[in-house]
Each structure stands twice: as C-alpha cells, then as structure tokens.
C-alpha cells in the first residue's frame, strides 16, 4: 500500500505530461530514485508517542520493513506543528495553522493504539496503556516528547492564558492564539513585558528570544516602544547555549533595548498584583582573595504582559520506567541514550527520538529530522544482525526571528560549531529575509515531508 502511495504523484504527473518531452526528463529523475530494499522480519516494534518523531519513524519503518508488527501508542487525536506556535502567537497565522489529525499522518499497516502509555517495563519488554492493554515488544522507540510542568510556576493556571496580560506560547495552538490577543493589546498601549526561559532543559530554546524580538517589533510598528520596557529573565549568565550565538543575541538585545536580568528563574506569578517572582540563586565570587557569598534571593517584577514558560521534564511514564539517566539531569528524567546512535545505553533494543533524549542538544523538530535516519539505520541493522553506521552529531536548527520579515538561520552541533546548510550563501548570524522566507514558507512543508518519512 505504501509503495502505491509512493507512486501516486508520479502516475498523476504522467497524465499531465502526456506527450511532452520536457516532462520526460523530470519524471526520469524522479523515478530514478531507488528505495532501500525491504527487510523481511516478524519483529514487534512499539513506538511511544505519535508526534513528529513517532510519526516520522513509523512511516520510515513501514517503508523499510515487511512483515513487522509496528504499533504506535498515543492518546492525542490532534497533531501539533509546534514550530508554528511562534507565528500564531505573533498574529501571523491562525491557531488552525498548527493543527492536523494524528491519524492523517500514520501509514497503513501501522497499528495506532489511541491511548496514552501508562507503563513501560524495559526488563519484561512491555508497554502498558492507560486502558490496561499490554503490548509486548522486541524493539521500543521512545518518542514521547516532554511534559510542560505548569505546576512548576506557582499561582499559574492554564485557564489564565489570554486574560490580564498572561500569555503562554508553548501551551498549544489555542493558547498561542490567546497569547497573541494579549500581546496585541499590550503593544497597542505599551508597558512592561516579561520574557525568559526555565532553568531546565527545554524544547526550542530560541523561541523565548524570538518572541521577545517579535514583541519589540510590534511596539516599534505601533509607535509604543518608547513607552515600554522589555525585560528578558535569563536563567543563567547566557541568552543562548552556543557561545557565538549568545554574543550575537546579546548585541541584538542591546540594539533593541531589551533589559536583560541574569540568573533569574521564574518561580511564580501573582495575578492580583500582576507581579512575577524570580529566584536568583546564591552566587560565590572571589574578591581580593576573599570568597564573597551573595545568598539566594527572590525578586518581584510587575508586568503588563508576560510569556510564561514552565520547567520542562520527561513525562511521568518515562520517569517511572527506569530508562532515565540516574546521574544527569536529575529530576528531569531524560532517557539514557548514546548521543551518537540514540540507542539506550542499558537496553540495546530501546531507541529514543526527539525531546525525550538525554543528550546535550537537540530538542527541536530539526533535530528530529536528523534523529530519524539514525534510529532507522541502527534498528534495521539490528534486525538484520548487523551494526548500524549512521550517527547523530547534535544538529539543531533555530530560525531565530529578529523581526517580522527577518531571521537568522542558526544551525549548530554538539560541539557548538555552526553548521550552516548553505555555507557561503546564507550567513548564520545575519538577519536575513531569505531565512525568514524559509521559516514562513519552507519549514512546514519540510516538516510534513518528514512526518511522511520522506525528508
């Protein structure tokens, strides 16, 4: 069935090209791509999570394996194109831009269990669903994504989003749209806006910065920038994990007049007084040979608008599974995978894709795109009794929007090297129109092609 799907556009195109020599060459090139050979197996493969990673690998494996029993476990009926949330929250796209149906992307022959996973036992090799169904597996792919720990922000509740200047871009398409309404109202009159990021690992660490830039742009377009203060609360002493990008963003924030508060971690908000409370950890410094300790303290900042981003942790089912690192990211629960092969270090028949991986970088859809062929390679090789050869180098991409119409196409790896896709053509640290066009036009089709296992 999947093979037929692959041919469909070509058959349709053939009719269109009837008798046209010009089309012939194009068709020959398209049809000339040979697919990797199908591998016969009876392996039972369970995929936990039908987001970008789970759906992408389901399509890839369905096209590679013949006879495999592939089950994907996810109770979420909607598929969310999360890279679209920033555009929604900037009023450039409607909430529906990011919403599609999970089932629309899954290939035939893959069994979708429409329930959330409730338990994973890597020793017994079983996944249990919330409904009590027990699924035995030979191979497990963990693509659960992460949990936004809203309870980690005191006094905050998701029902507050879209009222009284409270926004939460990460929460979902509806909340992103509600955040836009608040940001739109705020930028009409100006005031104090608060941005920042949590102290945990997080998905798309560039998004909080982009939203700061976009709010600044709207204030300038509406002529209210001079009546406003934009405060960015950095969780540590940096704005971005990659040093060269950090310096660039610092320069841009300075240029835009963004007031940065270092080592401020959002603790809670008080809707009554419209204030946010930040924790500032203890600091030890050596001054004139003496250790000077500045004790931890709290600081309250009043706001007219705030984009709340909570701490991010692995879902409960993963934290309970025994797959997490014991000595790294303690309390966050990311799974213990090899950072090159994405294979679990203690359970070789377990792989991780996407946000859930306990690796130093790469909680983005762009990284998922690079995780997919690596996991496919190692899993299929293992089925064939061979060793996989592909490796993940930590590739992450962040189209850092700096205003509506411009972005910096920042791509980097584990070693903080910039790894531009178009070296010498698209400069990574320049605010460019082409990078914006890629974000606005090119990214979603590429993402969708990835979901279908084709990119």
């Amino acid at each position: 069935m999947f093979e037929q799907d692959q041919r469909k556009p070509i058959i349709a195109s053939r009719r269109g090209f009837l008798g046209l020599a010009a089309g012939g060459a194009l068709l020959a090139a398209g049809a000339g791509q040979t697919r990797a050979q199908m591998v016969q197996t009876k392996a039972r493969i369970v995929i936990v999570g039908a987001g970008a990673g789970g759906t992408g690998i389901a399509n890839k494996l369905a096209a590679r394996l013949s006879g495999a029993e592939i089950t994907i476990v996810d109770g979420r009926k909607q598929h969310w194109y999360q890279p679209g949330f920033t555009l929604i929250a900037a009023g450039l796209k409607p909430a529906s831009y990011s919403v599609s149906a999970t089932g629309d992307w899954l290939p035939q022959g893959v069994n979708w269990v429409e329930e959330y996973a409730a338990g994973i036992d890597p020793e017994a090799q079983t996944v249990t669903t919330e409904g009590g169904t027990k699924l035995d597996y030979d191979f497990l792919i963990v693509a659960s994504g992460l949990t936004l720990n809203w309870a980690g922000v005191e006094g905050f509740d998701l029902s507050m989003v879209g009222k009284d200047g409270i926004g939460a871009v990460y929460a979902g398409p509806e909340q992103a749209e509600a955040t836009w309404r608040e940001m739109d109202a705020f930028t009409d009159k100006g005031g104090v806006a608060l941005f920042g990021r949590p102290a945990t690992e997080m998905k798309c660490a560039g998004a909080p910065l982009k939203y700061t830039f976009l709010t600044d742009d709207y204030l300038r377009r509406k002529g209210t920038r001079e009546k406003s203060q934009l405060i960015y609360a950095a969780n540590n002493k940096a704005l971005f994990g990659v040093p060269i990008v950090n310096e660039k963003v610092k320069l841009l924030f300075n240029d835009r007049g963004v007031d940065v508060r270092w080592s401020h971690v959002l603790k809670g908000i008080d809707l009554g007084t419209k204030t946010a409370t930040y924790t500032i950890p203890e600091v030890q410094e050596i001054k004139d040979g003496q250790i000077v300790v500045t004790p931890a303290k709290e600081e309250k900042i009043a706001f007219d608008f705030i984009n709340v981003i909570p701490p991010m942790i692995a879902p409960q089912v993963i934290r309970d599974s025994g797959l997490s690192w014991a000595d790294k990211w303690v309390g966050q629960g990311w799974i213990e995978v090899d950072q090159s092969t994405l294979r679990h270090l203690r359970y070789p028949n377990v792989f991780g894709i996407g946000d859930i991986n306990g690796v130093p970088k790469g909680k983005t859809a762009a990284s998922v795109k690079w995780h997919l062929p690596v996991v496919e390679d190692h899993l299929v090789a293992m089925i064939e009794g061979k060793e996989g050869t592909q490796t993940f180098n930590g590739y992450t991409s962040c189209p850092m929007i700096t205003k509506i119409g411009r972005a910096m196409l920042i791509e980097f790896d584990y070693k903080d090297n910039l790894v531009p896709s178009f070296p010498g053509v698209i400069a990574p640290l320049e605010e460019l129109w082409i990078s914006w066009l890629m974000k606005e036009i090119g990214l979603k089709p590429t993402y969708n092609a990835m979901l279908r296992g084709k990119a």
Partner: protein
Amino acid sequence: MKELTFETLLAVFEEMFGSGLFWFMVALAAGITAAYLYVLIRDRALSMRKFLVAQLSMPFGAIAAVVFVWQITNSGLSDIGGPVDVIILLGVAAIGAVGLAILVYTAQSLLRKAG
C-alpha cells in the same frame, strides 16, 4: 539540512502546494515550455516583432513575481538584510520576467499565424 535530494525537494513542494496543485503547476509550466518549443520549431525562426512584445512584458512579469512573493509572505522590501536577499529578490524578478516573456511569445504565436 541533512541531505537535499531531488526526491526530498519534490516531497517538500508537494506538501507546500498539495500534491494535485503542485503537479498541475509542473505540467502547466512544462506545457507552456513545450508549446514555446513547438512554435519555434513550427515557425523555424524567432519572430522579432513577437519577441519585442514579449520583452516589453518582462518588467511586468518581474514586478508581478516580486509583489506575489511579498503578498503571500509577511515581508516586504524593507526586510532585505544582506547580499543574498538582493540576489533572491532579483532571482524572483528574473523568473517572473522570463516566465511571462515565454508565455507572451507563445500566446502570440499560437493565436496568430507565423509572421
């Protein structure tokens, strides 16, 4: 981007426009190109008068293409940020200009007899 193969590019464009529309546009472009080649071969010469009209249409094609890109995106002239942006802008204009010129030449040739 990990690897930008021709197959990946086709998949991305299919997602961008929808499979039907994309292949319709490819067929349309191929059809117009084939019709252009057809009239060239049929007439066995490039008609300078038709070519002149086609050339006169080029600036309109160039402007239309650029305005189209600005319309479908949230961006405009002030977003040009570096040399590559200027190259892209000129590229879009060039595609619009050449595309319209070919269309105008072919349409003239097909509607009127050779001459």
